């Protein structure tokens, strides 16, 4: 992530929706975006893990990002997508309600996360806010989210 911070050009983000809110992640960590394939539920796994799916022979876990961020789990629709992310050492799918766009955002338009205001369970993982014409995109740091999961798993 340090390379990204040191560069000065616009950031490329993948925007997506979770409920009413719009989020984004850095495009560098997204390997591909797939439609919902068959996800096999894994018993005894954490509740936010929807299951595992077959990505061309590789078995990868799928995390329901809504649930992970403390929202109600949503029913999969035709617009539901899975962001397949590459966050070494993990390859992981994140289920989102829909993918909106891939955009370039100049760095001046990205603010650090707001200090005040409870934003729910997403807050610790918001690394910045991208201000677009009429909307705000919360940029999530997925690596941080995974680290938190691991710490929790170790503590359990």
């Amino acid at each position, binding site marked *: 992530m340090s390379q990204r911070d040191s560069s000065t050009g616009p950031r490329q983000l993948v925007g997506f929706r979770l409920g009413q809110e719009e989020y984004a992640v850095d495009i560098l960590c997204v390997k591909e975006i797939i439609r919902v*394939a068959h996800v096999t539920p894994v*018993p*005894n796994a954490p509740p936010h893990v929807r299951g595992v799916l077959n990505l061309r022979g590789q*078995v990868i*876990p799928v995390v329901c990002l809504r649930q992970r961020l403390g929202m109600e789990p949503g029913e999969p629709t035709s617009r539901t997508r899975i962001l397949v992310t590459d966050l070494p*050492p*993990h390859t*992981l799918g994140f289920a989102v309600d829909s993918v909106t766009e891939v955009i370039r955002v100049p760095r001046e338009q990205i603010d650090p996360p707001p200090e005040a205001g409870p934003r729910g369970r997403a807050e610790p993982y918001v690394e910045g806010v991208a201000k677009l014409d009429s909307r705000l995109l919360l940029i999530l740091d997925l690596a941080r989210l995974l680290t938190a999961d691991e710490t929790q*798993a170790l503590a359990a």
Partner: protein
Amino acid sequence: MSDSFRPNPELFADFVAETEELIETLVEDVLLLEVDPGSADLLKRVFRTLHTLKGNAGFLNFTPMVDLSHSAEDQVAQVRAGRCSVTTPLTDGLLLVADMLRNLLDHLRDPSVACPDVGRLIQQLARLAEGPAGVAAPPAAVPVPPAAPGASADTGAPEVPAGEPAPGAEPAPGEPPRAERDSATVRVDVQRIDQIMNQVGELVLERNRLQQIISELRAGKPVERLEEALAENAGRIHSITGELQAALLKVRMVPVERIFRKFPRLVRDLEARLGKQVRLVTTGGDTELDKTVAEAILDPLTHLVRNALDHGIEPPAARRARGKPEEGTLSLVASHEGNHILVRVSDDGAGVDSARVARKAVQMGLVSPERLETMSRTEALDLLFAPGLTTSESVSELSGRGVGLDVVRSRLKAYHGMIELTSEPGRGTQVTLKLPLTLAIVPSLFVLVGSQLYAVPLASVIEVVAEESRQRFVFQGRPVLRWRERVLPLLDLRDLFHSASAPAPPGRKTVIVGLADRQVAFLVDALVGQEEVVIKTLGDYLGRVPGIAGGTVMGDGRVALIVDIPALVGLARGEALAAAA
């Protein structure tokens, strides 16, 4: 000196792998030389091996290794020149060199391991050349690997006066043969790779044919006998992928000889140390098995061989008194049985006194005295696998600490293996290890639980029986199944996998699985079929999911989960044990 030793990782891995092999060859040849001291051919081989070791170390500028191999090479050169002959101090010295080279490698691999001091050993070697008077006992400074804490007391002893090659004392006795720790690499016969290349070539042809059909269809051209063409194509792909799978498995296979060859040295050292005479016989060394499995059995085998020498085979006098030849026989036999490899360790020693095992178990509170009355000999022998049990009256450095067979069994469990022990008092003991040939591809039984399919490795399935309620009971609050005069813990996979949403269908099946020598019954909704599956991990993110060993991709592209039999058996046994206590 060695701090500056940082070659590129690839070169280093090659160096480590080759050095390990050379050290092994060296040990083997030295042991042969001991039996046949006059062999010029063996001497030449030892010389060459040392020379190559020196050259490789020199190439990487690793001075201590260069110096050590050089001085050993010098000694062998003296013998070759006829200035001295092959003596026990020399072979002992060369074996110590091999040990020291291993320690040096350990240091290279992990710089936190102190770099051993080669100076004393070099001096000792040099003294060898001065004739018998200069022969020193192996130095006390030979580092003992931390894995053998019991041996350290002995090697810390003051130096034995020079000139006395104290038999059976120092040379790091009982040190376990080591696995090639860098299991991330495999050496493969080029022919096998060529074979795979050919198959991939064929696969490409079939893909091209498929693309051709598709483009013809896209262009609106009628493809002649389309269905037939596709079926043919699919058929060929099926057979090529089958061959490819088999060929790739072969790449992972190594002869069990690789493991067996580590034992002559161990037996030699133990023999001397224990004052026993033992002949080691190995058979079936060319039996092939998966590299992972091969590495997995090294430690258990070492345990068993040590046990056999320490507890099994009697001292020569005792053997004579019993009318047996003074020299005991220890045999390692490998063979294939279906998809399994069997490795049998047998000795013609004293055998196991099952009554004593049982008494010991009562003393330790492992079984009740009442239970003992009704115990068969087999059941009593089974107690040997109980944690903490040892039949040895005194704890020796080699064994008798009660960390033997239960460790062996749990190791095997992890690899879906089984262990069986038979023993006849006065005649000897036989331990058989049974392991799947490979861990990568597993013939599995697909079962339905709720709406999900699960794969159960067939290797652990003993029998499938219809759900019969008259065989099911509740024993101390836990469901159990009566099966062939035995009472097994019964688990419902619906409960374990939380799939109780829909009511259980009628006509469910009970799958009896066995792991090592423990059996457990599982209830499933239905049997679906049998298929070979490739085990895939669920990834680090999920880590260890209770009851799930991994996933596999099915024909329709969906993922089916693989049931973790060892975990479930443990769970069932744990509960059963807790209930019985």
